[in-house]
């Protein structure tokens, strides 16, 4: 098979995987090295669906033994199959990198003969890039559930980031939709990676020469809307992964139906709005000091479609507002809808010179459309006391673009 044809099959097969992160790790180019990775993360292009392209994201193979309900590549689907050799992937990565198409490689794979045989081949790609090609760009490897600890370790030493997909938000759903994968064979490598990353960091404080283990950290990904879990369950899971397994990122991927299967829900469209709200809530977990239980509760276990989770929280907590922008500390400012970390920092910096005026707030970049209901400026409110929750909801809604039509979810 021509390499061009393989590339078409194996990048098409990888596209349903949400992750364009190549940030979080700086690696300087040395004299012999080809390439470096940038701290901020660089997008090299945006594909026709508007997503950032920064990595050569492909599968090593789509020739799968397993039969997961939600996956195009499952063994029972009659799709064209292809597998790259390790050398082919190495060459493609180098040619693309030299032309500045990409930051590096994101390699995943279907399960070929078995987890270890597949993982071994993937690790070989990363090792060839580092050792033979002296490649200093970014490498992200997906760990195949059930791979042996030794291979996971080698993967971590060659790659910048490794990740194990948690796939679905609960063990029961995994059992139902991906019966050949066990929850434990996913959590075990995750735990191992977490520990290795931790001890590599410790060793490196003692010696700069100690090897780096997945310096850009560990991430995972789950499919949203293929199984019945609530947003609260999902956020609790993410919170646990951040706190206990030390994960850098959890990616949420709206379920795109590609198979007919009576274990799967029938969706009118992929739940994109829900995915978007989950990312916003996840952001609150990581950067705003919110907990899952503050964002949602057992009575209201799903994210509001009309409001972003921070505004929704503010509406439920009128007792915390209004916030005085000239006095409130950084963390209090952060909780105001329309004020993000950047503008909160700018407010704190600007008021050292003089009290901030309403004009000043706009210049700083605060989204006044939203913030005006929740702040005062040197004691003066912006809106004539619209503090009554129901009316406030209305006002905010009128000022917001209409939410996308509700997506129909029917479990069969």
């Amino acid at each position, binding site marked *: 098979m021509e*390499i*061009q044809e393989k*590339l*078409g099959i194996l*990048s*098409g097969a*990888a*596209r*349903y995987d949400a992750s364009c992160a190549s940030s979080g790790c700086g690696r*300087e*180019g040395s*004299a*012999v*090295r*080809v*390439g*470096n990775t*940038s701290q*901020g993360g*660089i*997008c*090299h*292009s*945006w*594909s*026709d*669906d*508007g*997503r*950032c*392209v*920064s990595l*050569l*994201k*492909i599968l090593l193979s789509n020739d799968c033994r397993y039969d997961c309900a939600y996956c195009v590549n499952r063994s029972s689907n009659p799709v064209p199959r292809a597998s790259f050799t390790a050398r082919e992937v190495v060459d*493609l990565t180098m*040619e*693309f990198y*030299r*032309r*500045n*198409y990409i930051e590096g490689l994101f390699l995943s794979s279907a399960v070929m003969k078995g987890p270890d045989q597949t993982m071994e081949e993937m690790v070989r790609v990363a090792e060839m890039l580092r050792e033979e090609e*002296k490649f200093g760009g970014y490498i992200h490897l997906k760990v195949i559930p059930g791979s042996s600890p030794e291979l996971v370790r080698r993967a971590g030493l060659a790659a910048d980031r490794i990740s194990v997909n948690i796939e679905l938000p609960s063990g029961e759903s995994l059992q139902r939709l991906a019966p050949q994968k066990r929850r434990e064979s996913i959590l075990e490598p995750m735990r191992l990676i977490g520990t290795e990353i931790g001890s590599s960091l410790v060793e490196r404080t003692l010696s700069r020469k100690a090897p780096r283990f997945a310096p850009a950290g560990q991430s995972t990904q789950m499919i949203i809307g293929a199984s019945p879990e609530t947003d609260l369950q999902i956020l609790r899971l993410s919170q646990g992964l951040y706190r206990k397994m030390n994960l850098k990122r959890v990616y949420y991927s709206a379920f*795109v139906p590609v198979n007919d299967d009576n274990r799967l829900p029938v969706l009118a*469209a*992929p739940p*994109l709005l829900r995915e978007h709200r989950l990312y916003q809530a996840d952001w609150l977990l990581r950067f705003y000091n919110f907990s899952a239980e503050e964002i949602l509760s057992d009575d209201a276990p799903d994210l509001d479609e009309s409001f972003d989770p921070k505004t929704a929280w503010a509406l439920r907590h009128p007792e915390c507002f209004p916030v005085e922008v000239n006095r409130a500390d950084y963390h209090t400012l952060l909780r105001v809808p329309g004020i993000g970390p950047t503008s909160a920092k*700018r407010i704190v*910096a*600007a008021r*050292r*010179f*003089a009290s*901030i*005026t309403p*004009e*000043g707030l706009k*210049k*700083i970049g605060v989204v006044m459309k939203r913030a005006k209901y929740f702040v005062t400026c040197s004691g003066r409110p912006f809106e004539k006391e619209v503090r009554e929750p129901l009316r406030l909801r209305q006002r905010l809604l009128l000022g917001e673009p209409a939410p996308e039509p509700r997506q129909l979810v029917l479990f069969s």
Partner: protein
Amino acid sequence: MTRYLYDGTAEGLVSAIAQLLDSGTDPMLATLAEREDTLFEEGLFLRTDSDAVEALFSKLKQRAPDAVNAIRYCLMGDAGGLGTSLLRYVALALVHGDRINGHLTDDDVKAVVTMARKAGRELHRMKGLLRFEQMRDGAYLARMEPDHDVIQPLARHFSRRLRAQRWFIVDLRRQSAASWDGSALQFGTLEQFSRPELSDEEVAVQEMWRTFFRTIAIPERRNPKLQKSNMPAKYWKYLTEKQGE
């Protein structure tokens, strides 16, 4: 209000600022603009003095290192209309140090910081969007027409990243060029330019990249508007993946 003029170059602008501040001119009572060789233009012309530029930068580096960066970035932009703001910004930076960048409620500071941010954003964008093409002799060439004069920091970025290959970057809007021979970086101007022929391998690799680009998009999620807002059409001219669409 006194009107001062400089020669229109970035160096001339900084030199004029240095001279005005040295002479004790009150920046709030002065305006600074580019000379437009009209016969009866009003204003005092300040000659470019590179020593004054260096002296000002070294003073600023000590007192406000971040402000130096903001000025550099601002100068990569079309700083022509910003002479007066830049003058006042520098005066404030010398007094307040780097805290000045937080003083966004001041119009002059805001104008300078905004311009610097825009230029910085384009520089960052070009780090991703620049495309190198292999020519028949094995060296690589990248063409661009950015809004801001980003070639110097951009070339420095690639001298760290693509250090094992020979390459050129040309800015066809400003007729300037950078080259890397595997060990040293050089800058120069272009007299004339015609694009050399591509290597055979290049043609094949470009075809593969287009295949990859086409197949990674999720058809159910097509979103040309989002694509355009992230990657404005003005950059498509030299994007390999946007050729022959």
